[in-house]
């Protein structure tokens, strides 16, 4: 990447890959940054994710119970909740919380550093900004968003079980059996995999917007807003593309059978 030049997606991706591959052993200071950021992204988001996931799981179960009772298929609610949460709702819900908290924060922090000449100072000291600043953040994003997603699924299922228990008198054993037998662990992998992809997409947007900030302190707010809006749009688009590809692959697989 050219010193002082504009940061592009291609340039950022290349320098992040180079930074990670050239010297895979990260110094202690970078691990410290990784763990600090992981705490902020994952642990401090727990109350928000709990509230949102519990409500979404409950509402999803309520809608499904109401619709499926007419068809006498309400026993399939746990299974459907498991599939919908894992494949669609949990990755998107976790991504929304993550974008609102961490992507906006990262973009604002980088914009502040750019305007305060900290990025310029790092560049002139010969510090690889991508490796030193971005790599620990990207690592924390890619690890913690899937963790948040898995947590969202768990809490969502808890909410759905509450509704099934109240409306249908379904106990926890029955709920788990109906949700997971026969096991469909591919749903969990799809959800976690999607989250990792979302983390990369949102991180790259936050990094690029933040590092290209210009102007005064007003730019920080502008950059944070732009990063949130762009990340939400990009994640929604990527989710649609992944779901489309997934359906095409399933259709092809069924045709081959």
């Amino acid at each position, binding site marked *: *990447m*050219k*010193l*002082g030049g504009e940061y592009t997606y291609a340039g950022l991706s290349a320098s992040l890959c180079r930074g990670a591959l050239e010297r895979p052993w990260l*110094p202690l*200071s970078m691990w410290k*940054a990784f763990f600090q950021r992981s705490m902020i992204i994952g642990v401090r988001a727990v109350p928000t994710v709990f509230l949102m996931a519990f409500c979404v799981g409950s509402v999803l179960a309520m809608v499904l119970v109401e619709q499926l009772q007419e068809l006498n298929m309400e026993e399939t609610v746990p299974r459907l909740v498991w599939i919908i949460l894992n494949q669609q709702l949990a990755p998107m819900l976790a991504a929304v919380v993550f974008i609102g908290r961490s992507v906006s924060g990262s973009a604002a922090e980088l914009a*502040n*550093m750019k305007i*305060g*000449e*900290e990025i*310029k*100072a*790092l*560049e*002139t*000291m*010969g*510090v690889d900004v991508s490796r030193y600043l971005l790599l620990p953040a990207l690592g924390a994003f890619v690890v913690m968003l899937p963790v948040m997603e898995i947590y969202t699924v768990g809490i969502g299922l808890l909410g759905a079980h509450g509704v099934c228990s109240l409306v249908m008198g379904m106990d926890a054993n029955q709920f788990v059996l109906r949700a997971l037998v026969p096991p469909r662990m591919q749903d969990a992998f799809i959800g976690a995999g999607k989250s990792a992809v979302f983390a990369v997409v949102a991180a790259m947007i936050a990094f690029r917007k933040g590092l290209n900030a210009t102007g005064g302190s007003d730019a920080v707010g502008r950059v944070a807003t732009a990063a949130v809006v762009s990340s939400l749009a990009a994640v929604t688009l990527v989710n649609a593309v992944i779901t489309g590809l997934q359906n095409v692959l399933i259709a092809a697989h069924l045709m081959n059978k």
Partner: protein
Amino acid sequence: MIPPPPAPMPAATPLLVVRNLVKAFPNGTNVLNGVSLDIFAGDVFTVLGGSGCGKSTLLNILIGVDEPTSGTVHVLGQNIHSLPQRQRKRLMRDVGVLFQSGALLQSLTVAENVALPFQQHHPKISRDRDLLEDTVLMKLRAVKLDAHAQKYPRELSGGMKKRAALARALALDPKLLISDEPTSGLDPVSTKEIDDLTITLSRKSGTTVVVVTHDLLSFQRIATRGIMLGAERDGALRGTVLLAGSREDFFASEHPLVRGFFHLKEAGDVQG
């Protein structure tokens, strides 16, 4: 006690050579217009000028974070703008930069900020924690900040931030220190402290200094030579070198814009 300036080196090779530097903005305005200068070892070279004269643009070009429209910049014998990234980074080991805002990393302590250049360029020192700590403390002691090593930049005053930034800029004993308005926003006592430290530390380590400023008191105190650039209000002369010479040449100059700048500034200082 400030050490005496080194003896002039008439036949020396300049450390920094700028030739016919032009920087045009996208709207067609030339903010730098054919700037040429030579900076020799031991110089405390000052770039003077009013608002909009292109001082900061010149500094950005000198440190390689901005590209000139035309012209060349040779730092320590190498054309900084045609060097591959890796070589440019290696060259920047010998160039310390003190930014106007200090540009200390807010998430790091003062000691961690000063340790950063060592971690980047001296893996041997940075791997030995005790050695690194001792080296950093020594650097901080030189700017009288050793007692504040574990503080974060937000806990420091403006003058202390500048001193910490100076310690970081001089951490690797660079051959060249480029300093952007080092005394802006500081009270007269802190200004004098920064000026004295710049001179003392640079002379101790043999660092050549380039200072971009519009502070005449600092100029009087530290400059050996300098240039003055035409400001925005000077119309066609904007971004051109109005005068290049020694400190004495500036005070003796008959150039109306140089005289105007000096007298206006002096009048302003008296009124202020």
